[in-house]
């Protein structure tokens, strides 16, 4: 193993979903980082980032919750690794808003009774593609995912708005394709990579979710994908948990497993399938993985 790996150490903000409905994302993230020998330490007592509801009704609250998290994270060594695209977006937006608005910064610092530290916030994709590097990732592959056709789904918040996430090109990103491509998987070209799944309406307006997420599944299927790959527990909830409902509403059978990116990467890096939470997925990926000789 390359000794530079051990130099990579991060503080880790899982976010609420990764402790409940998105626990496979958490488990596979930890598994992957361990396999790659990248250090990961959870921020103690982190709190909810407020997600979309907080900024929908109160921007100051949204900024303050994120600022509090940044200050808690500052007590743990290393840049802050964030798995959930929505949390990532909120934390980065907060830094962005406070950077050019001293007035707002003052209000937020008053609200959290402390200062907001400069902490580098990075999405897992960024850590894997840039810090760890695609070449090393390729070297770490023990079980190539060749033959698996993956539709990489970015959703809205990973790359938008342009000046905030600084992850990749806003309208034509390729970072997910590059990262999973390192495992030998094939990626498909499809139309709905960046369309919204309707996450914020999961509870209040499921009809909206059925429409938007239904279009995403239809597009991935039309492109010939075997499965979808996501980097956000909210997207996962809509595309996996509600897939059956979507099938019933549209009369189309998709049977499209929706993987968290870390599940596929960890599988390729040799983490045993039993430790990746595949049995928690609503659309079981086991038949597909068996068919592709990946189990």
């Amino acid at each position, binding site marked *: 193993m390359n000794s530079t790996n051990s130099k990579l150490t991060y503080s880790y903000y899982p976010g*609420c*979903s990764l*402790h*409940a*409905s998105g*626990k496979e994302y958490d488990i596979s993230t930890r598994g992957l980082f361990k396999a790659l020998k990248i250090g990961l330490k959870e921020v103690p*007592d982190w*709190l*909810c980032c*407020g*997600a*979309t*509801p*907080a*900024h*929908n*009704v*109160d*921007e*100051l*609250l949204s900024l*303050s*919750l994120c600022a*509090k998290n940044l200050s808690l994270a500052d007590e743990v060594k290393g840049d802050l690794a964030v798995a959930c695209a929505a949390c990532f977006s909120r934390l980065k937006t907060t830094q962005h808003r406070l950077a050019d*608005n001293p007035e707002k910064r003052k*209000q937020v610092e*008053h*609200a*959290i*009774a402390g200062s907001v530290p400069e902490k580098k916030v990075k999405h897992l994709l960024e850590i894997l593609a840039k810090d760890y590097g695609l070449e090393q990732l390729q070297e770490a592959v023990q079980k190539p995912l060749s033959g698996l056709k993956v539709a990489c789904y970015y959703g*809205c*918040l990973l790359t*938008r*708005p*342009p000046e905030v996430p600084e992850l990749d090109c*806003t*309208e034509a990103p390729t970072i997910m394709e590059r990262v999973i491509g390192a495992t030998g998987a094939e990626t498909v070209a499809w139309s709905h990579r960046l*369309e*919204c799944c*309707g*996450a*914020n*309406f999961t*509870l*209040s*307006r*499921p009809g*909206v979710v059925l429409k*938007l997420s239904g279009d995403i599944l239809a597009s991935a299927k039309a492109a010939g994908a075997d499965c979808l790959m996501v980097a956000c527990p909210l997207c996962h909830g809509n595309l996996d*948990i509600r897939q059956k409902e979507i099938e019933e509403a549209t009369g189309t059978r998709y049977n499209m497993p929706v993987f968290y990116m870390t599940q596929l990467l960890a599988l390729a890096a040799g983490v045993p399938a039993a430790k990746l939470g595949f*049995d*928690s*997925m*609503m659309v079981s990926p086991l038949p597909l993985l068996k068919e592709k000789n990946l189990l």
Partner: protein
Amino acid sequence: MKHTKMTLSTETMNLDFVRKVESLSGSSVRRCFQCGKCTAGCPMRSFMEHPPNRIMRLLQLGQWERILAGRSIWYCASCETCSTRCPNKVDLAAIMDALRKLSWDANGPSKESYVQLANRLFIENIKTYGRQYEMRLGAVFNVKSGQFLKDLLLGPKLLSRGKLKMFHSKNKNITEIENIFNRIEEMRKTVL
């Protein structure tokens, strides 16, 4: 779409409100030249009676009451597509946030209050637990919205896969979190 006549006069053009929207969102309303790019990319336009570019036009004309009377702002998914694509750097997603905030403050729950209700419960959960407690969120939402049967079947399925937590422990720093809420409340009364 039903077309109703709009009378423009100094009385019906309330620009004070528009100025509030501009200051809350940090985005100019006047910049918009109605190219329609925001609406072309908006995934929610078919659910809105006023698509994003029309919201901008109505704001320019001071006709904010029409916006708040409708459901458009509550059907915005905050996906940032409009802000990303606007050639004039109008931050429409932030304008939507500002409109929701002003509507929330002025009217309380509107006829689109399901969305508000969900948002509010989400925030209450943070105040009480520090983190989201998905099962309580769903259960309370269903009771308060009167949709007792909605998602009844989804719950047990999630539980059986260990995807919903039955119990929840509060964050250790819950008093600090309460203090954040209280201080913001205080600021609202005085400086904001």
